[in-house]
């Protein structure tokens, strides 16, 4: 377990220090969430209705900003070869990187969301659902993103293709996440939407390390 924790902690440290993507993702999320109410105008009912969808899409796009570097940095500077020869299997390497991305991006995005929900006049119960949906849905963003990041590893400017690969795969996350908030606003139980979101995230976390590891292996041989 120690090599796994070592890699996880190093990646969180790298994301937090200068040049890491964590601060960038949070700033992007905050800026989009601030600009949309300014653009839409002071219709509080409309803003509350839009909040779930806008904040979810903004969170996914924000997480995407740092996703292309998930394996790229290690690939370019030669650390990935050293990591690949370590006792840690590549599947667990991918899982550690997914977890590090979530801790440094997904979790802070979820924690910031209640504050940004104030700008949309979102009712407290719906804000809570938004927070919970981001908390359980963002691991899927990191996991599915890892597949895209590993596929575009040896491409120059692969970051431009990455959204084309993973955004369609992430549509269920946005549908269930924003849907849960909308259900809560309508006074209905968001339990089913949250359940489906959790199931999707769980499956993504379980399967994507294998896909990402296979793709990293392929790129190391290129």
């Amino acid at each position, binding site marked *: 377990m120690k*090599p796994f924790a070592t890699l996880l902690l190093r990646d969180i*440290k790298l994301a937090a220090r200068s*040049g890491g993507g964590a601060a960038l993702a949070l700033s992007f999320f905050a800026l989009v969430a601030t600009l949309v109410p300014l653009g839409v105008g002071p219709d509080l009912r409309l803003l509350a209705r839009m909040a779930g969808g806008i904040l979810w899409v903004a969170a996914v796009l924000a997480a995407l900003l740092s996703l292309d570097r998930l394996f790229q940095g290690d690939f370019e500077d*030669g*650390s990935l*070869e050293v*990591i690949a020869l*370590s006792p840690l299997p590549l599947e667990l390497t991918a899982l550690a990187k997914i977890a590090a991305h979530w801790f440094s991006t997904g979790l802070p995005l979820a924690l910031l969301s209640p504050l940004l929900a104030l700008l949309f006049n979102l009712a407290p119960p719906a804000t809570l659902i938004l927070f919970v949906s981001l908390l359980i849905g963002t691991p899927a963003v990191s996991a599915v993103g890892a597949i895209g990041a590993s596929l575009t590893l040896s491409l120059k400017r692969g970051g431009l293709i990455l959204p084309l690969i993973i955004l369609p795969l992430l549509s269920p996350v946005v549908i269930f996440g924003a849907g849960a908030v909308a259900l809560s606003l309508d006074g209905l139980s968001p339990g089913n939407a949250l359940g489906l979101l959790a199931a999707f995230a769980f499956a993504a976390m379980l399967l994507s390390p294998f896909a990402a590891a296979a793709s990293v292996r392929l790129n190391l*041989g290129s």
Partner: protein
Amino acid sequence: MISSLTAENLACARGDKKLFDSLNFRVSAGQALAVEGANGAGKTSLLRMIAGFLAPVAGRIVVKMDARENDDAEERGKSIGWLGHQDGLKPQLTVIEQLTFFAQLYGGPANPALLEQVGLARQADLPCRYLSAGQRRRLALARLLAAQRPLWLLDEPFAALDASGQRLVAHLMARHCGNGGIIIAATHEALGLGNESLKL
């Protein structure tokens, strides 16, 4: 402990270009092999093939370990210490953080004495972005030592090093072979180990 590594009829192609074929060699414990050849002859590709990153077009690589022969690349990877032509260092991490990370990743303790061995003891708390190319190479050597692997694959081990750095590499390689390790190094310079060389 690995007792020998044998390449049998190895062939390598990159894209449509054939780099080498029918390559045979054998390195036993305590020996070093210098892989020589012009730029683009396939030295790095051969090292990547031994490391298991690149699949051979034909032939196989057999490692004899504890009187058991094995040609599985993944199994072989667990014995390999890798020093590629890139140093694999992060500009944001300090020298000691970098070494600790790799040591723990390979399941060993982080030994600050390794920094002393490679002449970086005074730079321990310096972020890697401030290191010179030669100092980065020395840190990569410390990482190689921390991994404690019997089969060293070195790509241009003398690159970017000054005279004392080159003596250090020669000393570390001699010690590794003396302890029964195996070294395969792609290089343009003599290893100085009384070793065999392979011309690609």
